[in-house]
């Protein structure tokens, strides 16, 4: 399975890929290779993480045609949506991305991750809202594998807040999935 996570620097894009990859590789007995691309600028620039998850050993580490695209900025959406598989899954940050009409058989789901994070006290939790949302909808890893992967990826004092954010994203994901059926 090929997953592209995209947005702008500072949103925790790479961390989303990192946590999903860690959950798959360490807690779900899969192979997971994360590669990333970023410009010289750490914040504000376009940024993306590429994750390949497989039952077999991953030889070629890069994406060919993404099955899943997460777009957390308009720029990332415009740039990467055309690459998404025709029956792929597209997850967007609904306040930050104004989507075009859905292409082909793409299943598109939107979440106001940043707004939810702000209600939790800090917009920096937005990536964890998105992680929960991703896992609920795509089932790329079991929820428990994801939860077990979180400790160590954020400072301990912020762990609970991030888990809360993840849970909210997960619940919303399940709701959206149920609505779509």
């Amino acid at each position: 399975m090929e997953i592209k996570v995209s947005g702008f620097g500072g949103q925790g894009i790479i961390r989303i890929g990192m946590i999903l990859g860690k959950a798959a590789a360490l807690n779900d007995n899969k192979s997971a290779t994360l590669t990333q691309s970023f410009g010289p600028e750490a914040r504000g620039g376009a940024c993306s993480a590429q994750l390949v998850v497989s039952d077999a050993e991953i030889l070629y580490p890069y994406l060919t045609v993404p099955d899943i695209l997460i777009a957390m900025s308009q720029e990332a959406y415009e740039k990467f949506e055309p690459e998404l598989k025709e029956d792929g899954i597209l997850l967007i940050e609904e306040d930050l991305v104004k989507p075009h009409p859905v292409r082909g058989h793409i299943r598109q789901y939107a979440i106001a991750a940043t707004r939810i994070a702000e209600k939790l006290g800090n917009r920096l939790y937005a990536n964890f809202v998105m992680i929960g949302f991703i896992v609920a909808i795509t089932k790329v890893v079991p929820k428990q594998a994801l939860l077990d992967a979180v400790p160590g990826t954020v400072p301990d004092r912020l762990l609970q807040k991030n888990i809360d954010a993840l849970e909210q994203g997960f619940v919303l994901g399940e709701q959206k999935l149920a609505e779509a059926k």
Partner: protein
Amino acid sequence: MNQRPRGPVLTGAHYLDGDHACAEGAIAAGCRFIAGYPITPSTEVAERLAERFPRIGGTFIQMEDELASIAAVLGAAWGGARAMTVTSGPGFSLMMENIGLGVMTETPCVVVNVQRGGPSTGLPTLTGQQDMMQARWGSHGDYEIIALSPSSPQECFDLTVTCFNLSEKYRVPVMFMMDECVGHMTEKVVIPEADTIDVWPRRWYRGPRDKYLPYAPDKDGVPPMIRAGDDHRVHITGLTHDARGYPIINAECQQICVSRLTDKIRDNADDLVMVKEEQLRGADVVVVAYGISARVATKAITDARKKGIKVGFLRLITVWPFPEKKIRDLAGKVGCLVMPEINLGQMYREVERAAAGKCRTMLVPHCGGWVHDPEDILKAIIEGAK
């Protein structure tokens, strides 16, 4: 990095990028001294060691530049430490003079180069494999070097340990030729229990104190070592020297000194060469690759096999000394050797030289900044199979 291991070695399964895995490999190999100057894309190696070392009795020094960094590493090694420096192309260039000093004084140490695109400051954040010849020939004079190239974060851990072991066994600076892609690629890395990791000790001199000669070689051509300041008479110099380590400036001594420096590597090339072979028997075309290019080539190889082409794969783990016997043998058996590398033909020249016209050789060049399109490698395989 938030894991807090009990002992120095981070035993267990981790999700690490190549840079961090290299840092953990250094710790597992007993490295407790690093001197360096930050440079993208290698900084994460130094960063991790700067955080890890104070907790495990190691020393990290951020030096004023790369010249000083490698000098400090040589000094630390003579003080008894396992020592390493970490850099990328521009810093590697600055280290060249003292890498030669390390070769001449037979100082065990590891130089990590997470390669980016050059020349000059080139592409700081983007990949390249353009320092491969510099690793071999960058310092002046005639010498032999050891260099390894990893293709995954797991190998960044494993081979960093190997680099230290080889540097101790052969008393030579060992180059660890990573690239930005492998350095910033994250995968599962399994770190074994500390006591199961094969770490080779320094070749300490154990004879009588008054008989010690710093450059009197053992049977395999490598002299045992003492710790400077440990009550032995010791003199080391970059000048051509005799067994006592004293400068002798004549052709006879040069012959003995330089021959031994080169022969200790050349004569042990079979011991040093590590490659991974896949479906070489009966192959019409063999792809030869190393580092990230070896990972990228796997897609082209898979696609070519789907088209019914008999493709073998030779992945170079040891790049120096160059596995020329392997290439020579292959050249007599296959139609074409195809080599993708992220430069305009560096290791390819060695492939061409070793093949010596016994088969066709094809370079798939790339200027750097990104990896090959697997299609380009596939095209070369198809062409080579004709």
